[in-house]
C-alpha cells in the first residue's frame, strides 16, 4: 500500500467533498482550456488567411467589415465599386503592387460563398487543383476542398446559386446553373470554403435576375452570348435594387432585341465566353462592378506603399483597409470579452483551490487520530506531509483531465453550430500548445491548496492526539 494509493483511497472515501472539489476545478480548468482552444483556432485561422495580403480595397464602409467579408468571408461586403474606379489597382504593371485579386460576391450555395475572380486567387492562397480543372467558361465553378466534402459535390455536379449568404431556398436564383469543373486541394485557408468562378458568372446571374431586358433562359446559359457591359450598376451585394431602374438598361441596350437571344453585339465589347476573362478583358468592362480587391505589395516597407491606403481613403470614393491593423483591432475587441471570461475562469479556479483547502483541512481534523496512527506505525512526518500534498495533487490531476475533456466536449458540441454560422471548422481534441503550462498551473493550484493542511499534518503531535483519542 503506497502513499499514492492511500491518498487516492482517502480522497474517494469522502465522495461528496470530492465531487464539490472536482466540479469547481473542472469548471475552472475547462473554461480556461475552452478559451485557449477557441482563441488558438481563431488566431490560427485569422493568421493563415492573412495570406500576406497587405491591403484590401473596396467600397466605403467599415474597414473591419471589408476585411472580414473579403478575407475571411464572414460578414456582408461593404458594397460594390465600379471597375472604372478599381482599374488603377487591377492593372498589371502597377509600380507598387505585386499581385491584385478582384473579388465579386453576392451569392452563395448552401452557405458557401460564390466568388467571381480570376486565377490570381489561386496563387494568393497557394491553392492547386486536385481534380478536374480551373474554371474557365461562364458558370463553371472550381470549388474548395471543404465545399466539396461538406456538400458532397463532385466533378460534373450542378447547383443553383442563392442570393445573399444564407442557405435560403427562397432566394435561389432562377438563372445560373453552375457546374463543378474542378476541386482544389485542401489548403487550410479560407479558399477551402469558397466556390470560385469567373467574374462574368456573378454578373450574369444578377443581370438575369434584375435585368428585365433579358428573358429567362436559365437552363440554357452555356452558350448564350451577350454583352455584359450593357448591364451596368448592378449591386451584387443585392440588398438595394432600387437604384437600378430599368430605363438605364433600356438605354444601355438601346435597340437590342430583348425578346430574342440573338443579341446583336457590335464593336469591341463582344467577347468570347469560352475563355476565362483575362485581366485586361475585365478592365474593359468599366461600368461593371466588383466587390473588392486583395492586394500584395511588391515591398512592404516602401514608403509609397505605406501611404497608399491613406491616399485611397482621402482622394477616392474607395476604401482601403490594412488587414494586420484591422485584425489587431478585432483581437482587441474580442479581447475584452475573452478577458472577462478568463477572469471568471480564474475566479472559479481560485474558489476550487479554496474548496480543496477547506475540505483537506476538515478531513485533517477528522483524521488526526489516523495520522498519529500512521506515525505510530512507523511513518514519519514527511510521509504525512507528502500524503496530504498527494491528495491535493490527485485532485488537481483529476480536475485537469476532466476539465480538458469537458472543454473539448463543449467545443465539439459547438462546432456544428459555429461552422453553420461562419463556415469555419473549429476542431476539438487538438493541442493548442499550452496544455503543459495549464497542467503545471493546475498542479500548482492543488499543491498550494494542500500546503497548509500538509504542514499541519507534518506537525502532528502524536502524544497529544493519542492521549485524547
Amino acid at each position: 500500500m503506497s502513499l499514492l494509493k492511500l491518498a487516492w483511497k482517502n480522497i474517494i472515501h469522502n465522495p461528496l467533498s470530492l465531487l464539490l472539489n472536482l466540479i469547481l476545478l473542472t469548471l475552472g480548468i475547462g473554461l480556461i482550456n475552452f478559451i485557449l482552444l477557441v482563441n488558438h483556432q481563431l488566431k490560427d485561422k485569422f493568421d493563415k488567411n492573412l495570406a500576406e495580403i497587405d491591403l484590401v480595397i473596396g467600397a466605403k464602409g467599415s474597414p473591419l467589415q471589408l476585411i472580414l467579408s473579403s478575407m475571411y468571408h464572414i460578414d456582408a461586403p461593404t458594397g460594390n465599386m465600379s471597375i472604372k474606379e478599381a482599374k488603377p489597382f487591377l492593372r498589371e504593371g502597377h509600380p507598387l503592387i505585386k499581385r491584385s485579386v478582384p473579388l465579386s460576391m453576392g451569392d452563395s450555395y448552401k452557405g458557401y460563398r460564390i466568388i467571381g475572380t480570376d486565377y490570381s486567387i489561386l496563387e494568393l492562397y497557394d491553392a492547386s487543383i486536385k481534380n478536374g480543372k480551373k474554371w474557365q467558361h461562364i458558370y463553371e465553378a472550381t470549388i474548395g476542398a471543404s465545399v466539396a466534402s461538406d456538400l458532397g459535390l463532385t466533378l460534373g455536379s450542378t447547383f443553383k446559386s442563392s442570393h445573399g449568404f444564407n442557405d435560403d431556398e427562397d432566394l435561389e436564383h432562377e438563372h445560373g446553373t453552375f457546374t463543378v469543373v474542378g476541386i482544389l486541394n485542401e489548403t487550410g485557408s479560407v479558399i477551402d470554403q469558397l466556390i470560385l468562378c469567373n467574374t462574368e458568372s456573378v454578373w450574369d446571374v444578377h443581370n438575369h435576375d434584375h435585368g428585365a431586358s433579358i428573358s429567362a433562359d436559365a437552363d440554357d446559359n452555356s452558350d448564350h452570348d451577350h454583352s455584359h457591359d450593357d448591364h451596368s450598376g448592378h449591386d451584387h451585394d443585392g440588398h438595394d435594387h432600387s437604384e437600378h431602374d430599368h430605363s438605364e438598361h433600356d438605354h444601355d441596350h438601346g435597340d437590342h432585341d430583348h425578346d430574342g437571344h440573338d443579341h446583336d453585339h457590335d464593336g469591341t465589347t463582344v467577347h468570347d465566353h469560352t475563355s476565362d476573362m483575362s485581366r485586361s478583358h475585365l478592365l474593359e468592362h468599366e461600368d461593371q462592378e466588383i466587390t473588392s480587391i486583395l492586394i500584395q505589395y511588391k515591398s512592404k516597407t516602401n514608403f509609397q506603399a505605406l501611404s497608399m491606403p491613406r491616399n485611397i481613403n482621402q482622394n477616392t470614393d474607395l476604401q482601403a483597409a490594412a488587414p494586420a491593423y484591422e485584425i489587431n483591432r478585432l483581437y482587441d475587441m474580442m479581447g475584452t470579452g475573452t478577458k472577462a471570461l478568463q477572469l471568471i475562469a480564474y475566479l472559479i479556479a481560485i474558489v476550487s483551490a479554496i474548496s480543496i483547502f477547506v475540505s483537506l483541512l476538515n478531513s485533517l481534523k477528522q483524521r488526526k487520530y489516523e495520522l498519529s496512527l500512521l506515525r505510530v506505525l512507523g511513518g514519519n512526518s514527511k510521509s504525512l506531509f507528502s500524503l496530504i500534498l498527494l491528495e491535493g495533487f490527485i485532485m488537481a490531476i483529476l480536475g485537469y483531465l476532466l476539465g480538458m475533456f469537458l472543454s473539448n466536449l463543449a467545443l465539439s458540441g459547438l462546432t456544428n453550430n459555429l461552422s453553420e454560422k461562419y463556415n469555419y471548422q473549429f476542431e476539438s481534441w487538438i493541442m493548442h500548445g499550452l496544455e503543459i503550462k495549464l497542467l503545471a498551473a493546475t498542479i500548482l493550484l492543488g499543491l498550494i491548496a494542500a500546503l497548509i493542511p500538509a504542514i499541519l499534518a507534518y506537525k502532528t503531535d502524536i502524544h497529544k492526539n493519542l492521549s485524547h483519542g
Partner: protein
Amino acid sequence: MIKTSNIIHKFSDSVSFEFPDIICEQEKTLLVLGQSGVGKTTLLHILAGILKPTSGDVFIGNTPLYGLKGHKLDKFRGKNIGLVFQKPHFVQSVTAEENLFLAQKMAGQPLDKKLSAELLDALNLNHRKTAKTYEMSQGEQQRLSIARALINKPRLILADEPTSALDDKNCEEVIKLLEQHSENVKAALVVVTHDNRLKDFFSNNIELH
C-alpha cells in the same frame, strides 16, 4: 526485551511523574496497573517512543530509544514496537486487510500478504478482511488491532487498556490472544491498564501510584 532507567517526565513545574524502572524479557509478560491520573498513558507513550521523557531512557534490546532522532525513531518504533490501543483506531478509508499492509509499509517492511492472511486467520478475521474497519464489531476491531501490532513481528508489544471496554468473556479472550501471539513472535508483552481483572492472568505486575 524492554528496560527503563530513571524515567521522569515533567509536564510543568507542578505536574511531573517519576516512574519505577521496568524490565520485561523476551517472551515474558508484564502488567502495569494504575488508577486514572497516575500517568499510565504518559508511561505508555514514553515506552512506545512517542513522548520523550524529561530524563531517563528506554532500551529496546540494546537500543536507547531516545538516542534515535526523528524519522529513525519512527522507523524503529514501527519495526520493533506493536501498539494496541484502548479504542482501536484504523485508517478508515481502507479495508481491514489493507490496514495491515499499511502497517508493513509504514514500518518500511516488504509487503507480506501471506503473513497478513495467516494473522487474520489466526485471529478469526479472515471473513472480514475486505470489510471497512468501521463496519466491524468492537471485538473484531480489537482483534484486528492485535493483528496489526503483530504484523511486523516486533520485539515489544505494548497494550494500552486493551480490555477496559470488553466484558469478562471477551476480556479473557483478548488477553489470551495477546499472550499467545506475543509468544509466537518472541516479543515481550507489556500491558498498561487499570483493569484489575487482569491481575489473575499475569505473574509479573507493577502498580503505579
